[in-house]
């Protein structure tokens, strides 16, 4: 790719490969403060506004016999409530954590989807702050659930599982500590982040290659563009799947962690 990259400096036909810089676009507002706003942050604002608008419109006039919009919203909310939260936590505990988990699912889903929306083209969840913050929320939520349910015994139960001979605690306890209290939030955050970053990279690679083959390379090279464009389309659909799947996985794992913390014995 290097020869291509140097072919026409600054020209519009230059091959723009995907780069990490995509995730750190120039600051637009409040430069130099902790409240800097760049393109990705604007996308996040847009996501928040669209989410609120959609759900406000769908639930503004709730009817016993739902209309089209209300049906869709109910379908989505039912899916989160029944298939993810109540199935994992049961109805009683599920009700307590339903707002948190519903928020996680729809916020992550909407942030992920911006990665394949033309004009936005980058997922709001593809910069570490967002997945990390949500992983932190999930972390706090399951520790809170555990401590509230088993005051004093939660950390002991987590670190010293019952039914294990005491000498094995030398091995088990560090493993439990690392897996429960360190790896859980890190894997939550990184799984989401890396999926979104990789998705963006793939899409940019496919479409910028298509652009390059048609407009810069020309001639027979144009034929390659058919292949790259087809890949681009395929990966767009794939990213749609990944967006839903990652939101689902993140929310379901959060629910499972809360459920494990609530369970009597570990």
């Amino acid at each position, binding site marked *: 790719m290097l020869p291509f990259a140097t072919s026409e400096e600054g020209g519009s036909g230059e091959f723009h490969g995907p780069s*990490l*810089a995509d995730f750190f676009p120039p600051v637009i507002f409040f430069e130099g403060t*902790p*409240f800097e706003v760049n393109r990705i942050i604007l996308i996040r604002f847009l996501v928040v506004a669209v989410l*609120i608008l959609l759900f406000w419109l769908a639930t503004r006039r709730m009817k016993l016999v739902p209309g089209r919009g209300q049906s869709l919203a109910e379908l989505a*909310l039912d899916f989160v409530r029944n298939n993810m939260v109540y199935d994992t936590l049961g109805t009683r505990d599920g009700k307590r954590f339903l*707002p948190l988990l*519903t*928020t996680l699912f*729809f916020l992550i889903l909407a942030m992920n989807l911006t990665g394949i929306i033309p004009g936005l083209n980058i997922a709001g969840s593809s910069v570490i702050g967002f997945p990390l913050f949500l992983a932190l929320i999930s972390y706090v939520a399951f520790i809170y659930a555990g401590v509230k349910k088993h005051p004093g015994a939660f950390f002991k139960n987590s670190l010293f599982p019952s039914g294990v001979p005491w000498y094995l605690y030398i091995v088990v306890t560090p493993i439990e500590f690392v897996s429960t209290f360190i790896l859980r939030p890190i894997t939550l955050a990184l799984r989401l982040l890396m999926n979104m970053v990789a998705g963006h990279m793939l899409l940019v690679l496919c479409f910028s290659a298509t652009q390059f083959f048609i407009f810069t390379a020309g001639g027979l090279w144009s034929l390659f563009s058919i292949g790259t464009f087809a890949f681009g389309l395929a990966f767009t659909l794939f990213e749609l799947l990944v967006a839903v799947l990652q939101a689902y996985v993140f929310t379901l794992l959060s629910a499972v962690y809360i459920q494990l913390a609530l369970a009597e014995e570990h």
Partner: protein
Amino acid sequence: MLQAIVTAATEEESINPLLPAPYDIIWSAVAFVIILIFFWKYVLPRVQKLLDERGEAIEGNIAKADEAQRKAEAALEEYTAQLADARTEAGRIRETAREDGKKIVAEAKVAATTEAARVTASAQAQIDAERQSALVSLRSEVGTLAIDLASGVIGESLTDDTKAAAVVDRFLADLEASEATAGGKK
């Protein structure tokens, strides 16, 4: 040219995608909090309320349907009972009517017989009366004729009614007496 790429590469290396910038965390938190409050305080309570209402409505409808079913069954029973009653009543009425009819016919027969008898009797009486009056008028007629005749015979006017009547009566009595003797001879 190569230099530029290397520079760009080193610049990119200075970016660590795993280290969050403060603004990144802050705006993520803001977005999360807004959506959390929105779902928590607006969307989910409304959905919950709707689900409760829908559940109540469904239960209410089932209860209503049960009630309607029960009412319909009661109405059917009542109707059947009424129908049976009506049949019995109709039979009873028919029976009474038949009996009444018989009675009426019998009464009519009796009345007709009585009436016929009465009519016969009155006719008989009338005939008797007319015969009697004919007899009387005949007698007076015959008397007058006889007196006229006698007057002509004896040339004397029997103007005195009393005398005339006496004469006539005597004559008739004689006539009857002679008839009676004639009848006795036979």
